[in-house]
Structures are given as C-alpha cells and as structure tokens.
C-alpha cells in the first residue's frame, strides 16, 4: 500500500496529536473503506464502520508503536470492527450481491442455483465466511487475509 504518511506524523499521532491524526485519517480512509466494504458489502455500513475504526484508532493511539507498520495495525482494528458487525448483523444473502454489478440475465434454474449458493454461503459461520469471501470471491492474497485476521 502506497502511503504518504511521514514518520514524524506517526510519532505525533502516537502522542495523541489531533493534527497528526487528521493526516493519517486522510491518508488511510479510502483504503480502510475498501477493506471494510469487502467484508460487509454495504457502502453505507462501510462508511459508518470506517468512522468507527478511526474512532478506535484514535482512542488507542497510546498503544501504537511508531516503529511498526501503521497500516498493519489499522488493518487488524478495521477487520475486527467489520467482523464484529457481521457477527451482530443477521446473515443476509442479499448483501452477497454486488449492488454495483449488472444484473445477470439467466434461466430460472441458474437463478435458483445462484440463490441456493448465496443462501448456503450466508449460513456459514462468520469465521469461515469472511476468509472464504475474501479469498474466493475478492481474490485477496491469502497472506494478507491471514495477517488481517491474525491467523497463520
């Protein structure tokens, strides 16, 4: 991930500086939003959870070590926020459809099969559904998924 955050800003952020927080926020908000959107698949909720993520980031500034990767640290927080939301929200097959994608014209049988797959996927436990979604659908590298989820 290409970042324009200067090390001095990260040091200031770790001390609780609001100006430095604004720098890291503006630098990272798009990336955080994209990652959360991949998990929750709802743009409005992804925006809300992006704010929630940065709220937690700001509140946890004292725990951040400027010597370590800021983005890796934020990635863990944003992933936890998104997964917590998915756990709270009832599994919804409708959210598995990309609202930006064109509607696929197909036969009733194909549509039925697709709906069965969506329903089955929604029924998976969150700890399986999220990695499967990121890996099989979004084609996120497995190493990135493992780091975000804190698994090996």
């Amino acid at each position, binding site marked *: 991930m290409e970042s324009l955050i200067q090390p001095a800003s990260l040091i200031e952020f770790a001390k609780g500086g609001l100006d430095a927080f604004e720098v890291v926020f503006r630098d990272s908000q798009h990336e955080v939003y994209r990652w959360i959107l991949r998990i929750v698949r709802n743009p409005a909720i992804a925006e809300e959870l992006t*704010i929630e993520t940065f709220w937690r980031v700001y509140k946890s500034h004292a725990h951040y070590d400027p010597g370590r990767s800021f983005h890796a640290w934020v990635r863990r927080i944003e992933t936890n926020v998104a997964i917590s939301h998915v756990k709270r929200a009832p599994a919804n097959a409708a959210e598995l459809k990309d609202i930006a994608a064109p509607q696929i014209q197909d036969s009733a049988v194909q549509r039925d099969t697709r709906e069965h797959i969506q329903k089955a996927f929604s029924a998976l436990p969150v700890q399986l559904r999220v990695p499967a979604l990121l890996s*099989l*659908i979004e084609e996120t590298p497995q190493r990135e998924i493992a780091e975000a989820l804190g698994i090996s």
Partner: protein
Amino acid sequence: MTYRTNDDDALQGALKQAIQPITGELDRDLWPEMVHRLEAPQKALPWLDLIMASATVVLLAITPSAIPLLTYQL
C-alpha cells in the same frame, strides 16, 4: 504451496457466479464526520448503577445468608 484441483476451480467459478466481487470507492471525505464523532459528548458513566452494584456486593459479603434470598428474587 497450495495445490488446486479442477473441483476447486469449478467451486470457485460457481461461487463467483453467485456472489459478485464488490467494487466501490469512497466518493467523499469522511473527515468532517470524524470530527463530529470526536466532538460528540462522551457517554456518562452509569454511576448510580455502579454504586448499587457495589452496595449489593458489600451487603452480600457481610450477610452471605442473603444470597439464596437474592437468587430466589432474581
């Protein structure tokens, strides 16, 4: 190294037909909302609840015989 079979590819193909990858970019700056959130008043601690809970614990420590009575009431 991960080995993939034709079944894996077929499964992934079926999944990707059923579930579209999501694409989307943030089309606005969220900083104003972040500032609003930072400036929002903090939720006050429920002091009364804490005092009542502490008093109950102290009372039960002094009179353990009240525990079955309290459990029955709950």
